């Protein structure tokens, strides 16, 4: 979905002083309100990076598609049942948000453009656990996946750093703050038997702050 959008944007003829297409690299910090996330990451945050592309469909309104993805993990130490020694394993998640939504750009200053974004999200998470490399023998590895729908709403500001091609191309930096929420990510392991076995759930919603570098043309 992203590649055709970029290709279309590169082939299209720009309107005079109007930018129809946009592409941006993003990096975010998202707060995690689920206390169980503290088992995954030292801080209650998730830091993904990604890409957003869009096309203007009416004056000021663009349809955007994009994704962001990030990893987090911990080394977990557990006592043996007799309490005599300690054993460890690695735990890591890869959390990816795919988004499809709309972004409205408000008219304000020439170089400063406020934005409002609303998007549907599809979240995909992979949860991996692997016994510590310090353990002898064949390590146990597990991998569980989860999908959940959600939404994102945010507002931000774009600042145009430079113009090119008679102001038909803008190079922007921007930030956006808002709230994202996915339904619970339910990690199932049905492949391990006829009856469903659940590792549990994570609720990865929370406020976010996104920085972006991109262009509109």
């Amino acid at each position: 979905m992203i590649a055709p959008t970029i290709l279309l944007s590169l082939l299209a003829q720009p309107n005079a002083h109007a930018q129809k297409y946009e592409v941006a690299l993003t990096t975010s910090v998202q707060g995690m309100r689920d206390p169980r996330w503290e088992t995954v990451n030292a801080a209650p945050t998730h830091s993904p990076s990604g890409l957003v592309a869009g096309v203007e469909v009416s004056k000021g309104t663009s349809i955007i598609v994009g994704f962001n993805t990030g990893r987090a993990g911990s080394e977990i130490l557990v006592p043996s049942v007799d309490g005599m020694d300690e054993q460890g394993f690695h735990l890591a998640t890869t959390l990816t948000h795919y988004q499809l939504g709309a972004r409205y750009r408000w008219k304000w200053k020439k170089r400063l453009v406020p934005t409002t974004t609303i998007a549907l999200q599809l979240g995909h998470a992979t949860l991996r656990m692997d016994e510590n490399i310090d353990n002898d023998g064949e390590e146990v590895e597990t991998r569980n996946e989860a999908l959940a729908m959600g939404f994102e709403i945010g507002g931000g500001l774009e600042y145009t750093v430079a113009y090119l091609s008679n102001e038909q191309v803008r190079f922007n930096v921007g930030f956006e703050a808002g709230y994202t929420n996915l339904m619970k990510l339910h990690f199932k392991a049905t492949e391990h038997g006829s009856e469903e076995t659940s590792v549990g759930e994570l609720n990865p919603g929370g406020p976010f702050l996104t920085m972006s570098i991109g262009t509109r043309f």
Partner: protein
Amino acid sequence: MRLTILFLTLLGACSQWPQSQVLDLDEALWSPDTITLDDGVYAILPRAGRLVRVGTNNTWHTVSLDGARPLSIRADGNNERLMAHVQWPVCDDPAPNIVLVEDCPEDSLYWEAEMAIIDEGQRIAVSAVPAHMNGMAFAPDGETVLLFMDNTSESHVVNGPIIDLTEVMFLDMATGDVQALSVGFMPRKVLFTADGTRAVVMSRSHVVVVDVPSRTIELEYPLTLDADIEIDPSAAVLSPDDRYVMIAIEGQSDLYKLDLDVVSIDMEALDGIPSDLANDPLTGKTVITYENRSQVDVIVEHDFISRQTFSLDEPATDIVLGDGLAVLFNSEEVYTHDIIKLDLETMDVTEYVTENPVHELTLSPDGQYAIATLRPQTDEDYGGFDGYQASRWGLAVADLNTNDVVSLVLQSQPVGVEIVQQGETSFALVLMEGLEEIIQVDLAAPGNHTALDLPSPPATIQASPTGGFTIAHRSPLGQISFLDPSDGSIETSGGFATSGFFSEDRLPRRVTE
């Protein structure tokens, strides 16, 4: 500097195993003290508060306990069903916004306990058995269980506002029905007659005979008439005809003989303080060993106690019975090395001398071999072959048909020994701490052994009712191997301890306002 930080950040994001922290969890994910039944291996997940059944081919599932957490598990008398002591949190505050255990005010939170009976991975019955009723005696048919508090057991848990220390409970395995009965202070030993109609329950200074079908006390025997004297039974056996109960008393050299037909108590003065009693149904003889006396007695006539006494070189404290023979050893002393075979038919005594003291002993199914793990006699290797062996764990194999005994040195402490009999050949399967192999010792030629590779160091081994063996490994995420001794094949299932890792600690069975 900034470039370095940026580089490290990017590296962390790209790493397959980002490590933001080292986190210590309070509880283990699973307990390797598993129970193997014919339908799979059951394991407790303490952190998640769940019970899982693990099978071959990397399959497992959690057993539904209606929100309760397992405290301890054991197999029933027939090794067919699982009995699980469980408890669940109750929050007295009915506010609907209280969903998780942590939401409940501390003074409104308490725990209820019950016993779940599980078959084929499903809870089939539930009984109102408190968690402290952890001692169990099974009637011969396995369908009736007498529960009592065993405060010497590791699984001993006490909760609840009131505990009646005089109480035992009958549990019907088919229905889960329970019935409490007051029998005397701290009941600690229970014997069932062969037909299962009577149960002899021994408490402090008091013995009762219970009629099992009616769950009523049929006979009572005070062991003393002086309330200031405490008489605690330490060992007991029924005579082969179920008429007499013989009871050894802690710290006393008297043997109490209770006649269950003509209600009476006789006392037999023994030569020392008995450490163990065992009755061989084949010969109808009762064996008595002593704590600190190099002697073993055999009661050959129970109506009027007639004993035969045999002198030994060293005291033997423990008895293992085979068909028509008793094997004796000392599990208490550090400098005893004898395994004694007492043939209860011919009354011949054979002495086998091991290199180190015996730790545990088992007999092969055909009764031909006694296999003993040997514990180190000293902490330090004082040199020479003797010092080398004396400071290490070992395995002894005594051929009970001959006078031969072989003592082997083990690399580390054994975590389990199981015996396999295949036709005429017997093997001991030995697992050792930290060793990723299972050693198969040919009991006919103990020097000949083979090794099978294990995926990781073992923690426990158990015989399966289906003829195989299950090995629980020292693995934080859960790992169990299934060994087929007929071809030496090993299948391993792993990762089951992650079940419920991210589960919410919800209040179960909750009625809100």
